[in-house]
Each structure stands twice: as structure tokens, then as C-alpha cells.
């Protein structure tokens, strides 16, 4: 099977001697129209991969910033069907790889096979399902693999090398390493230097995964990126972009800071 676009985009950044940048924005945030303008800006401003959140009423892996933004999207009438059809209308428009991130239940109600088909044909390259651990991933792989849609694993500080190897055996696209034991938006315990447990975890992840490893959760300042070179291939920005937009900024300004 050909290399997933997500892997290619991250490897291209590595070839340029930099970390790939992966911003996240909940689908339909801050409103249904402006959202797609912000995605355009992310794409034009150097995002290598863009994560689009699929809002869910009960996001247990997310902190208050992402939860609040997701609920606001749901109130504005955002649905998975809307995200997929709007994305399909823009197919081919983005240089960046596209990842959909969310929880299993909305995907199940949409229909797992139908989702895999529609997401792939809308131009998504991978999916993160925060509440699907390895134990429950077989049916997801069975639906995604034939469509070339990567199921991106989420691992963390408490994931043993044995469990990383399980995820590694099936990973496509990239692997997502969570830098703190907590939810999105939790402040990382490091400023510039990496704490030893994060370094150890990333080293363990690099061994377990053939695909690139992205580090996420808790990135707040550009200085934090410097310590990641050689350990991680990409950095994910979750709540930081939401905060930036809430503070009156836009995606272009946000990317400017991190590039």
C-alpha cells in the first residue's frame, strides 16, 4: 500500500530540518462560515497536517477549552454530516494532510463503513478516535483500512513498551504521543527542556512506531519546540489555537508564532 499522505507531509517537514506543525480546530469553530476561512489560513500559513474536530457532547479526553468550543459548535448545528459534506466540497484544495478527530459514538451513528467511505472520499487521510484503545480497534481498522484511512493511535506517558508495540503493529499515518497525563489544555510541566519521562516516552514511541511520532497536549510556547528536535517529528496544537481565536486572533497569526 502506498505511504499515507500524513506520513509524507511529516517526513517532508523533517527533510527541511523542522518539526511538522499540526493545528487542531473543532469543526464549525468559531462559527460555521469562519471555520473554513480559518482552515484555509492554516493551510496557507504552513500547517503540515490539519486536525478537524468532530464535536461530541461528552468529550472525556478533552479539557474545558475544547469541550466548551465543541458544545458551542453543536449548539450552532454542526454535525458530522455537515463537516464531511463541506470538506468534500473543498476536496483537493488543501496542501496539508487532513485528520478528523473525535469520539466513536457520532461515527457509529453515522455508520462506521459509511463514515470510512465518505471521510476518505471527502479528502480526509486519517482519523483519531480518542475513546478507542487497541482492545476495541479491530472493527475500526476493518472499516478504515480498505479506504486507505489511517486510524491514528494515541499513546502516552503511562503506555508500556508492550502496548506501544501493539499500536505500532497497526499504525498508519503517524502516532500521537500525549505529553502529560491529563486532558487537552493541561499545562505541560516543561518550559523549554523536556522532562525525563517525556524524553523516555518519546524514545520508546520512536522504537515502537515505523510512522512519525507527533507530540501533543500542553504545548503553549514556541520555545518548547526546540527541545523536541530529534525526539518527535511533529507537534500538535489543540486548545492553543482555540484560545488564540477566542482572544481575537486568527489562524494566520497563530501559525506565524510557531513557524
Amino acid at each position: 500500500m502506498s505511504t499515507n499522505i500524513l506520513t509524507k507531509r511529516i517526513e517532508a517537514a523533517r527533510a527541511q530540518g523542522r518539526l511538522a506543525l499540526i493545528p487542531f480546530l473543532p469543526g464549525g469553530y468559531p462559527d460555521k462560515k469562519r471555520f473554513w476561512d480559518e482552515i484555509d489560513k492554516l493551510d496557507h500559513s504552513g500547517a503540515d497536517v490539519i486536525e478537524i474536530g468532530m464535536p461530541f457532547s461528552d468529550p472525556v479526553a478533552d479539557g474545558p477549552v475544547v469541550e466548551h468550543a465543541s458544545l458551542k459548535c453543536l449548539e450552532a448545528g454542526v454535525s458530522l454530516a455537515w463537516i464531511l459534506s463541506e470538506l468534500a466540497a473543498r476536496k483537493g484544495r488543501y496542501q496539508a494532510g487532513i485528520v478528523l478527530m473525535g469520539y466513536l459514538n457520532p461515527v457509529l451513528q453515522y455508520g462506521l463503513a459509511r463514515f470510512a467511505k465518505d471521510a476518505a472520499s471527502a479528502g480526509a487521510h486519517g482519523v483519531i478516535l480518542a475513546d478507542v484503545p487497541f482492545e476495541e480497534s479491530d472493527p475500526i481498522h476493518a472499516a478504515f483500512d480498505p479506504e486507505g484511512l489511517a486510524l491514528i493511535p494515541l499513546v502516552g506517558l503511562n503506555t508500556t513498551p508492550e502496548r506501544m508495540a501493539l499500536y505500532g503493529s497497526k499504525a498508519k499515518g503517524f502516532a500521537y504521543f500525549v505529553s502529560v497525563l491529563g486532558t487537552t489544555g493541561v499545562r505541560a510541566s516543561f518550559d523549554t527542556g523536556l522532562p525525563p519521562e517525556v524524553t523516555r516516552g518519546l524514545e520508546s514511541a520512536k522504537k515502537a512506531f515505523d510512522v512519525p511520532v507527533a507530540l501533543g497536549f500542553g504545548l503553549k510556547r514556541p520555545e518548547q519546540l526546540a527541545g523536541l528536535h530529534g525526539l518527535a517529528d511533529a507537534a500538535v496544537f489543540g486548545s492553543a489555537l482555540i484560545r488564540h481565536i477566542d482572544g481575537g486572533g486568527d489562524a494566520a497569526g497563530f501559525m506565524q508564532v510557531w513557524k
Partner: protein
Amino acid sequence: MKKGYFGDFGGQFVPELLMPPLLELEDAMARILPSKEFQDELKSELAHFVGRPTALTFCPNLSAKLGVKLWLKREDLAHGGAHKVNNTIGQALLAKKLGKTRLLAETGAGQHGVASALAAARLGLSCTIYMGALDVERQSLNVRRMKLFGAEVVSVDSGTKTLKDAINAALRAWIAEQGTTHYCFGTAAGPHPFPLLVRELQAVISREARAQMLDQAGCLPDYVVACVGGGSNAIGAFHEFVSDASVKLVGVEAAGSGKPGDWHSAPLSKQGTPGVLHGMRSQLIQTDEGQILPSHSIAPGLDYPGVGPEHAALQASGRAQYVSVTDDVALDAFIELSRHEGIMPALESSHALGWVLKNAGGLKPGSHVVVCLSGRGDKDLDIVNDYLARKA
């Protein structure tokens, strides 16, 4: 069958960051729970702290009125006033064996919060309770009780500000604090192994009730009836009877007001559909797009948009039937039992009783009916007084 499944329901739908503590708990269930040392300690706590066995009480006055023989399994007599302590004392003991120093728990009405707080106090563990901001307001007496037992109560201000959001908050907190902390889940729901663990700890209800029926009535019951929110008292009341084919198992959900368009708490007996929430695949009250809807019941402990996965499986296999009754049916049952038998049931348990009072005419005359009286009703006096004032 896949690990942690009851038929098509159950599983472990949690972020990978929660898998290590769940695997640790699975291991503890296999290794520690069955050990003689643990079982001896648990038996001693159940006897001397909880006050077990609880009575099986025959109701002569309502039986004469209804034409069936009505028995109550008296979980209202357990310490704390409800069955919840069977679970919390067991989980607190297990937490200690695992070297944890702290319990965290979610609570809706506050009954599980109180039961967790008193078990933690008994065993020298610290305790944090997550409770929806609306529930903190509605159930201030239970908040005070938890605090008196030394627990910290965290008010959860996100989402619907009720039980489902308290569970989300507790799961999030557990991610960060798993090293020192056991999540004392309150009902037979959530990710594996909680549905199994809570069932094992609540099955004492049916172990006792089965022996007491054989002793006091000389036969097995024809019906075992229990209210179902998450479903912990019901799974505890059903478990030992599941292999007795002659015993009919009836779970009674909360239909809310019963008015079309109003929220309810009856995913099994009304229009629930399969989905994934709080770590489990089960029947849920949700939109076509998979967003979880608010639930409602006059009984705060039944107010939950999901249900334990084993109940979904017992319904699918036909071994148990699930029905619902409205707020008013439960309130009338509360008043009937108080007046005719001198026992004040919790509004949750009043749903189970309400179904029997309403449907006794359709049961075979002389049937033995055991109702799990999951808790006492003192906590509900304000709600009942409001109802009586409205009726007057």
C-alpha cells in the same frame, strides 16, 4: 466472547491513558477479589459496618390488597440508607490492597457520593466527589453529609451539569491521578471491568434474597423487580436468579413525566439506541447523530441517559424484561408503602414498587413478588411534599 462484553454490550471505550488503571483493576479482580483474605475482610465489613444481611420483609397489608405476595429486600436498612455501600466498601477495600490512598467518585443525587465518602472515612482513604453543579444545588443535604465524612466535593460546571458530566469529570481526573487514586465507579456501567466488579459486589443482594425466600416462603419468587438507572441494585438483585428459569426478572426504568417530548431516563424500555458513552457500548438516549441527550426523572438516582451493559444484554436475550413507570406512579407508590406498611422507600425504589402496584392485577394471583427496596426515602421528603401540595 471479547473481553468485558455481555453479548453485544460492554467493552472498554476509553482513551489509552486510562487503560493502565483499568488493566490494573482487572488484575486485582482476578487476583485479590477471590482471595480468602479479601473475602473474609469484606464479609466482616458487610456484617459489622454495613449491617448485612438486610431483612426480607413480607408486606401483609399490600399483599391482601393486591392479591400477590409482596416481599421487600430491605437495602434501605444498609448503612447510609441504600445499597450503594455494598459497592463502595468493597471497592475501597480493593483500593487499599492496591496501595491507593485516595478514592474519587461521581455522584448524581449524592447517594453514591455519600457511600463513597463514608467508606473512605472508614478505611482511612481521602476522597473527592465529582457532582454536577445543578445536583450540588438540588441535593445540598447530601453535599453536607459528604463533607462531614471528610470528602472534598467538586462542583462540575460543564455540559448539562448533572451526573453524565460528573462522570466525564471524574474520568478526566482519574487520567491525571491514576497512580495514587482508585475511581470508585458507582453503578454497574462504565468501561470493563466496572460492570463486572460492581455486579460482583452487589450480588450479595440476590444471594441473601434467594436464601431468605427459600427459608421464609419455602420457594423461589415468581418475580424479582428492581428499578434501573445505571442498574447496580437491579443487577445485584437479579444476578443469583438469572439461572433460575422460573424467576421472572423485571427492571423498571423512569419514564419521567410521561408527557410526549419531555426527557425521560428509560433507554431500554423507551426509544434508546445502541451507542458508546462512558467507556461502554450500551443502550443510550441520544440523537440520530450520536449526541447524548439530557435525561430526567423525579428520582435523582435514576436520572441517567445510559444503562449498564449487562442490562442491555439481558434485555436482548429476553432473560429480563424492562418497563418504565412515570414520576406520578412512583410518587403514589412512595405514599402507599409508607401508609400501609410503615416503610418509606426511596423514589428510585418507588419506581419498582409502582410497577407492581400498577400491574399486580395482571400477575398470577398468589405470585411471590420480591421488590428490591434499594434505599430509604427520607432524602426525598421535599419532592414528595411538593407533590402532595400540588395534588391537594
